[in-house]
Structure formats: structure tokens, C-alpha cells
């Protein structure tokens, strides 16, 4: 039952719903730690992501779940280079789409922050913030401005 609801929410990319379903399911004894953790990171709910990590029993902390939390830890400490290296792992096929969404949401959020905070920023720094090679940063940024209206 929970699996079906989860699959539906995943297909619809409704991340709040994914988080809610996972939370309910966890309380009912059937946790989906990886999807839960990833959805909290997409929603930028770091407090609850941290508490989720802390309550996952040690024997259920698979290397993959630990790797997902590693992303969260790096976001928490604002360690931009490490965020991108921790995103860039070999993920299992079930979780890989969600991780891609984590990367996308983080990059978008960062880009929004940069464009409202900086009147000028070096390409080098921008590349670090966005985890892109310098030659890719400028085209990426241009694309962002054309596809989203900044107030």
C-alpha cells in the first residue's frame, strides 16, 4: 500500500508528499529511509533530515543511505565543493532519479541565491558554487536567466 502511494508520488515528483508518506510509513514500521532522506534534502529541510539520520538504527545505515546523508551534511556546513563530489557517486537505479533531483534543486537554489546576492562574482567562484567546470558556468547561467524571471 505504502509502496504504491510512494511510487505514485515519485512519478508525480511531489516531494512533500514523498516525505509525508515516508514519515507515516516509518511510524507504521515500514521505513523508506533512502527516499525519505533524499526528499527532505530536496525540500531543504535540513533539521528534519538530520533527525531522520540520527534515528536510523545503526544496523540499517547502508553505505548508500550514509552517502545520501553525506550530501546533507555537506549542505548543512555549506561545503559547496564537497556537496557536488558527494552527489557524484554511483547510485542504485531506484534512488538515482531522486538524487538527480537533489542536485538540481540544490543548484537552482544556489543560483537563485547568487543572482540576488552578487552584483558581480568571479567565474571561478561561481563555478565552485554551482559545481560546474568554468567553461560550462557561463552558458548555464545564461540559460537560467532566460528560463526564469528574476524579480
Amino acid at each position: 500500500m505504502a509502496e504504491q502511494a510512494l511510487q505514485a508520488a515519485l512519478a508525480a515528483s511531489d516531494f512533500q508528499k514523498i516525505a509525508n508518506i515516508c514519515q507515516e510509513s516509518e511510524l507504521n514500521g515500514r521505513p523508506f529511509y533512502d527516499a525519505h532522506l533524499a526528499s527532505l534534502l530536496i525540500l531543504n529541510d535540513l533539521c528534519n533530515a538530520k533527525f531522520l539520520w540520527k534515528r536510523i538504527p545503526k544496523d540499517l545505515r547502508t553505505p548508500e543511505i550514509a552517502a545520501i546523508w553525506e550530501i546533507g551534511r555537506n549542505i548543512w556546513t555549506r561545503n559547496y565543493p564537497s556537496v557536488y563530489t558527494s552527489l557524484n557517486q554511483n547510485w542504485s537505479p531506484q534512488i538515482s532519479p531522486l538524487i538527480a533531483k537533489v542536485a538540481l534543486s540544490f543548484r537552482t537554489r544556489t543560483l537563485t541565491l547568487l543572482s540576488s546576492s552578487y552584483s558581480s562574482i568571479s567565474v571561478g567562484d561561481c563555478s565552485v558554487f554551482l559545481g560546474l567546470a568554468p567553461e560550462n558556468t557561463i552558458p548555464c547561467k545564461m540559460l537560467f536567466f532566460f528560463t526564469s524571471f528574476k524579480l
Partner: protein
Amino acid sequence: GINAEYGEILCSQSVLFSLQSKRSNLRLIVLNFIFLLQFMHFLQVCLLSKTYSVALPVLSEQAYEIDAPYPTKDFLRFLYYGGMIFTGLKKFPKALEFFKQAFTIPAKAVSKIMIESYKKHILISLLVHGQVLPTPKYASGSAVNSFSSSCKPYTEFSSSYSTSSVVDLQKAASNHLETFQKDGNYGLVKQCIKSLYKRNIQKLTKTYLTLSLNDIASSVNLPSAKEAEKAILRMIEDGDISATINQKEGMVSFHENTQNYNSVSTVQKLNAHLHSLILMTDKLQKVDEAITSSQQYLTRSLTQERGKFLSDLDEYDGDKPSMLMGMVGGGGPAGLGFIGAMRS
């Protein structure tokens, strides 16, 4: 019963099962504005199992009545656990409310819970207000005395905070490191130190329109322009400051807060506040009526010398204790005693 549930707490996985069964009971109760002993245990389970967010629906309901009789200690624990959950979720203003309620509870003997609440209240006050507001007059005298003797490290820390010197603050933190760690408050202490950097930067915006990153760094005791840049970016992200960084020139321009307050969400918030105010006023009126028609009150008022006391009751509204003082003529022992009874 409660014992079975406590047994479950020992195993972290099954904490979540007991949580679920509590929650389904609580879903119905939460709607009735009645405080129950169960809430306290529920919060304790949430804290132990680190499912903080699940506790929020219980904590966000207003409680007007208490399911008596109940031990004060359990009510104090409810407030303390509630404060801790809000602290964990970084909802500091709410945490402050809960801790304040805990240490201002009418009391002759001071519970350790009140003292611990007061300690956390000091630290979170620094985070929210940048200072510790004076203890409310309605706090019990004996409590206030205990606080000054058992919370010295905390009052020293808050004095250092008011000097705005990060160096002094860090010194105060390391002087009492053991106490803070033993009390489980070191995390909050570290957050206070970070917040002092932020406050000092915010102060700069009052004086300067633009400032170089180097000047900011030296002003607030950050090691480099790069650190200052990181701090400013963080503050912009958290909404603590309105500014733009010009990396090429190494300058920061500070802006006026351009909040328009004419968005849908603002209207919604306003409506929600108005709604809860109306509810609160309604409740207050009911409590007021209950007191004025209570046996105690009527008996006292009937034994007063001044005959016009009874007719004055009709025009009577506003601040109860002071009005009563005025009418009873400065409040003899009987008057004061009654006011004391009404307050608690």
C-alpha cells in the same frame, strides 16, 4: 498503561510504534483545547525517538483548560519538552515562550525543571532578542532567587554578549565550558556566538550604505575578507540582511528592507493572527465571567464596607487586580490575599 509504554522506550525502533498509537489517540483530543497528561508523555517519546516534527501538531494547539488534577511537575515537563522540541527545530521564538511559561509558573518551592528552563531561556533570548529581557513580575520570588544563585555561568555569558565583543564572549564560553556541556547547552552556546557575529554585522548596516569586505572583517573580528563574504552570503540566504556583494570591488552594499507586505501570504498570516486573537479574547471573557460570578469573589465583595462597590461592578472592566485594589482601598491583607488566589 504508562509503564508498558516506558518499557517500549528502551528499544529505539519500537519507540516509533508507541508513537503511532499515541498519535491516533491524540488526533481527536487535539481539537478540544484540553491539555492532557498524555501530551507530556507523547512529547517525551518524540524527543527520545528524535521524531521532533511529529510533535508539532500537539504543540501548536492552544490549551485553555487543564484536565485536573495533575501534578505540576508533569505540566512543567510538558513545557520543558515542548521548548526542547522547538529548539531542536530551530523555532526559537516558540521555544522561548514555552521555557518562559515554565520558569514563571507560580511556585513556592523551585523545581529543577524551572531552573533548567531558565538557563535555556537565557541562551535562546540571546538568539532571538540579542539580550535577556527582565524576568516578568509574575515570576515567583523564590524562583528568581534560585535562578541568580544557580545560573551564574549563564548570566555571565549573557553579560559578555551585551559587550558585543566576540572575543569576550568566546572567553566566557570557554570559562564555563564544563557547566554548559554538563547541562547539554553547549550547542546553544555555540549558536549564540555565531549570532553575535551576525548582530555585529547587522549593526553595520545602520551606519553604512556600502562597506568593503576587508572593513567588515576587521570590524566584526572575522579573520579575512573571504570569511566576511561567506558570512554575508549566509545572512542573505537566511533573510537576516538585505545586501549585495560586489566581488570585483570587494564591496558590500546594504539595502533598505524592501518587504512590501502586500502579498497573499501576508494577508493569510494577518487573518490567522486575527482569528486566534478573537478566540483568545473570547476565552478571556469567559474566564473573566467565571471569576466575577464565582463564590469566592462574590463573598469577598459582599463583605466590603463600601456599599457602592456592588454598583461599581457593572462599569467594571479592564485590569482586574489594580481595579480591585482601588475599590477595596489600597488592599488590606484580605484584598491582597484574594488577588493572590485569583492570580494562581
